[in-house]
């Protein structure tokens, strides 16, 4: 059983969002970078749990990024995983990233490919679906539970107002979200061990991106809160009804 876990580097959830170069680039200086939480907490930890159940399982991590992504790769290896692959390319667009990941996935012959449900920076939720198409594999998105019985995966995915349980034969691409696993903190043994785990660097394949970011903008500032006295909640309801007209 071989699992490929796709990880991405994102700004920390509390990072200040600002832009430079005439609002065309994220202001990354001084920002704390983390493993995209969906990739780490759900995709990677669930893969580690599967390996704990079946120690013959091999977990490879992959990311597309320049050398500055290596700290988060090491952190991911400290949590678990046998080796990591870094495709030495920039985040050009989702199709470019998915194509690089697909190349790695084809070479490795994986039974299972995990991604997070989206990255918390670009919120694209595009990589898993694109990757599945490029690999011609079934794709289950927004998975909240994943179980394996031989070569059949039982996966619970979120649907509007409920959930759906699907069965699918491996190989499969799964995008992971809350419910799959619980966040873990790497221990000292993991951190020490991560230093000696293999980290392969591959050059990207030539792929033309299909989209580009023209510019960013911040939402307009709020006008400020209108406070109503705690003695008079009826006034709040009146304002919502007559002024905001929300009901």
């Amino acid at each position, binding site marked *: 059983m071989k699992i490929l876990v796709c990880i991405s580097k994102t700004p920390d959830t509390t990072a200040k969002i600002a832009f430079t170069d005439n609002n065309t680039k994220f202001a990354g200086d001084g920002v704390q970078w983390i493993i995209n939480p969906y990739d780490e907490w759900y995709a990677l930890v669930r893969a580690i749990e599967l390996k704990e159940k079946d120690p013959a399982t091999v977990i490879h991590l992959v990311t597309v990024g320049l050398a500055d992504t290596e700290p988060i790769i090491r952190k991911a290896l400290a949590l678990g995983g046998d080796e990591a692959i870094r495709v030495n390319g920039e985040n050009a667009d989702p199709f470019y990233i998915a194509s690089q990941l697909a190349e790695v996935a084809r070479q490795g012959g994986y039974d299972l490919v995990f991604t997070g449900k989206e990255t918390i*920076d670009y*919120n694209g939720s595009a990589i898993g679906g694109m990757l599945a198409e490029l690999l011609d594999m079934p794709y289950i998105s927004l998975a909240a539970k994943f179980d394996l019985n031989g070569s059949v995966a039982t996966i619970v995915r979120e649907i509007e107002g409920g959930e759906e349980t699907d*069965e699918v034969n491996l190989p499969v691409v799964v995008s992971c979200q809350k419910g799959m696993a619980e966040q873990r903190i790497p221990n000292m043994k993991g951190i020490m061990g991560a230093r000696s785990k293999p980290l392969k660097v591959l050059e990207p394949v030539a792929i033309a991106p299909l989209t580009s970011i023209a510019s960013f903008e911040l939402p307009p500032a709020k006008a400020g809160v209108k406070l109503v006295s705690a003695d008079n909640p009826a006034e709040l309801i009146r304002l919502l009804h007559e002024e905001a007209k929300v009901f």
Partner: protein
Amino acid sequence: MSVLIYIDHSEAQIKKSSLEAICYGAALARQLGTGAEAILLGTVNEDLAALGKYGVTRIYQVAGEALQHLDSGLFTKVLAEAVPATGAKVVVFSNNMNGKALAPRLAARLKAGFVSGAVALPDTASGFSVKKSVFSGKAFAHISLKTDIKIISLNPNSFPLTTGEGKAEIAPLNIAVGAPKVKVVSATQSTGQVPLTEAELVVSGGRGLKGPENWGMVEELAKLLGAATACSRPVADAHWRPHNEHVGQTGIAIAPNLYIAIGISGAIQHLAGVNRSKTIVVINKDPEAPFFKAADYGIVGDAFEVVPKMIEAVKKLKGIV
């Protein structure tokens, strides 16, 4: 040259978010001086021709038992044949649960430029760029698409439903449907409740409510307003409320017309999931709660005193004594 809108359905019902996608696609078609058509895979128990009132003139329908449940690979193959057959240059999806699985897959197959989570009509004055939500609602990006075929998925609750006159023509499309690889074993849907992602009004509770036993007033207020209920992460983590109610950066992101936050301090991760709400109301006894900075209306006070009075006022407004 036309715009093609994908109609999503479950339990033989068309999703409300797909109606928004139709209105968006129709508005885009008017902007481009072209026509808007829609496509449905499978069958629904609804009068399809009536969707004409949202602005589509024709609805292509591909029949097949295997199309009642989403198998993104199978659906992609069908759509990849349908798109050139209809001559569509822009395909619009809702960025809902099924749209998130299907739209990127189709984009990869057609090598089409793809924008997910669009929040406004494309700017087509020079080129083609689409505004989307990024950084979990904390910013927007304008994405340029240069490919011949373009795919856009529209965030739910981001485009108003408008109706006019008109009936759509139903046009069966004869496309061979392969065998599904995904077997749907079961599906559960909380009945009678408004799905959180589609809800226009949301009442949400946080740790300030002290325990799951105190959710009665949240539910009562929500029910009176026809709102969905939601909660903050600590509440879901403590199992006071189900995980599918957790809104925030690592839960679900919503953009209702009204978000009422009761006993939620407003940590940045929570705000990320709700800051696209059109009106935010905060009830918190701590005047320093950061949520007040992001709110439109607020009451500094004890939720256990304020919320019952709000319920009374809503009852009076609705004529329920």
